């Protein structure tokens, strides 16, 4: 049963140093507020999993939270590189970060397998790609029925997954709308989960926009729900606010420079109160 906690308390309770953490949201509903709380609480040595490391992981990596990053596409969409990720991988600032890269299909299947309680995901993937030569977590197996050679990757089973969604109700049930990415799989695959939401309503099932096939994660499958208004800004929340494309562009200059980055984190995360 999801407990309604403050974002501070949810992160303090469930994100431990050294943990494997998945913060998902496929270019939508990216849990920025939660990422900033992780930075404020100075969590260290995290293994960060995310299909599309975006600005949020760039910030967490630059702030020194990460030891390892597992991903399938690492960039600032439509803009360019993640400079903090590159600086950490290439120059070891603020410290060395290890990377393990996959394809989207493999990671999506690995989240799905994690949610299904399986140890591995099987897919018709990586044929002819050289990614298996640099990622020892990609193996090939033979189908016992047809003999077909298929790719296998370990399922994603994070210690804690953190996602952002539109709304929750008093029972902790969470509604996710729009591009739903791997939000549900991330929550179900993890030992513990935190969902931040824009707002809390009394009962999702009596909301005017409720319908029987809505993507709802039941409260009893979630560890903690925390309110974080504009919690996915500068990415967007379908039905609430648009993506701030200008900030995504501005980030490029901020992240290029270590001092500019550090100053930005001080002003906008460390000294910005609990909900930034």
């Amino acid at each position, binding site marked *: 049963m999801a407990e309604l906690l403050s974002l501070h308390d949810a992160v303090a309770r469930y994100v431990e140093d050294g943990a494997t953490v998945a913060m998902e949201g496929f*270019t939508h509903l990216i849990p920025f507020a939660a990422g900033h709380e992780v930075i404020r609480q100075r969590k260290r040595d995290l293994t960060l999993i995310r299909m599309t490391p975006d600005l949020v992981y760039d910030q967490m990596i630059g702030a020194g939270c990460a030891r390892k990053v597992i991903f399938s596409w690492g960039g600032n969409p439509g803009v360019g590189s993640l400079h903090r990720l590159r600086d950490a991988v290439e120059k070891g600032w603020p410290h060395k970060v290890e990377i393990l890269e996959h*394809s989207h299909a493999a990671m*999506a299947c690995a989240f799905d397998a994690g949610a299904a309680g399986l140890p591995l995901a099987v897919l018709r993937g990586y*044929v002819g790609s050289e990614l298996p030569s640099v990622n020892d977590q990609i193996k090939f197996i033979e189908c016992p029925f047809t003999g077909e050679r298929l790719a296998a990757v370990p399922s994603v089973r994070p210690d804690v997954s953190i996602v952002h969604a539109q709304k929750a109700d008093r029972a902790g049930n969470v509604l996710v709308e729009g591009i739903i*990415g*791997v939000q549900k799989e991330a929550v179900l695959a993890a030992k513990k989960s935190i969902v931040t939401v824009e707002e809390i309503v009394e009962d999702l099932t009596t909301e005017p926009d409720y319908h029987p096939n809505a993507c709802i994660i039941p409260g009893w499958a979630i560890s903690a729900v925390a309110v974080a208004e504009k919690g996915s800004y500068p990415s967007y929340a379908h039905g609430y606010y*648009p*993506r701030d494309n200008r900030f995504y562009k501005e980030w490029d200059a901020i992240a290029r420079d270590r001092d500019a980055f550090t100053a930005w984190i001080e002003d906008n995360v460390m000294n910005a109160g609990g909900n930034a």
Partner: protein
Amino acid sequence: MSLEYTSAEMMSVTAARALENGMTCFVGIGLPSEAANLARLTHAPEVVLIYESGTLQTKPEVLPLSIGDGELCESALTTVSVPEMFRYWLQGGKVSVGFLGTAQIDRFANLNTTLIGDYHDPKVRLPGGGGAPEIATNAGEVFITLKHSKRAFVKDVDFITTLGFGRDGKGRDGVPNIGRGPTRVITDLCVMKPDPETKELVVVSLHPNVSREDVIEATGWEIRFADTLETTPEPSAHELEILRELKARTERKHAGE
């Protein structure tokens, strides 16, 4: 009478013409997305566009900046989860053509979006594979579009992120349940197709006012030309008008945000 147009417009229009009604296209962001939507707004209104963010049969009014822009979801028939997208729709064989861009491509149409240089000591680190490795093998065929340059068109890519036909042209031979792979590469200078035997890319059509030398100059290997080399048809006034409107709409939208 000849219309005025840029080589970038020539590329987009030619890439768009590769798509037809009845195709289901898994669309990459950037140039492929521009071409795919131009096709939808001109000669192929029934073409089904799918983006890896889970948006099925989407009809965006403006081009998305990122693969998961709200516009794609709001204009889609339905939006599914990312695992469903890759498992049921792509791997399940429901996609007839994958439309991809790339940073680097080689003579066997292998794509590199991982890095330039050595993997453990990269000169330039690129974003990585994303959806491309499985789009290229699970879609029925693959169209590739990118700007022609010596830096992009290399003899051998530094890293095969995504299979064209492998290091020797035989990468798909004997592999069960695999798509045909790249069937055409559309650039701002020409159209290339793989040789039916060797799978090496061959120029089949030069864009108007482009010479063989222009292509040779911009290609990092000894590029071959088809025996019957065609001239790519020019864009029509209608295509140019729709493309320019689409780009202007897109700019206005993204500047306002």
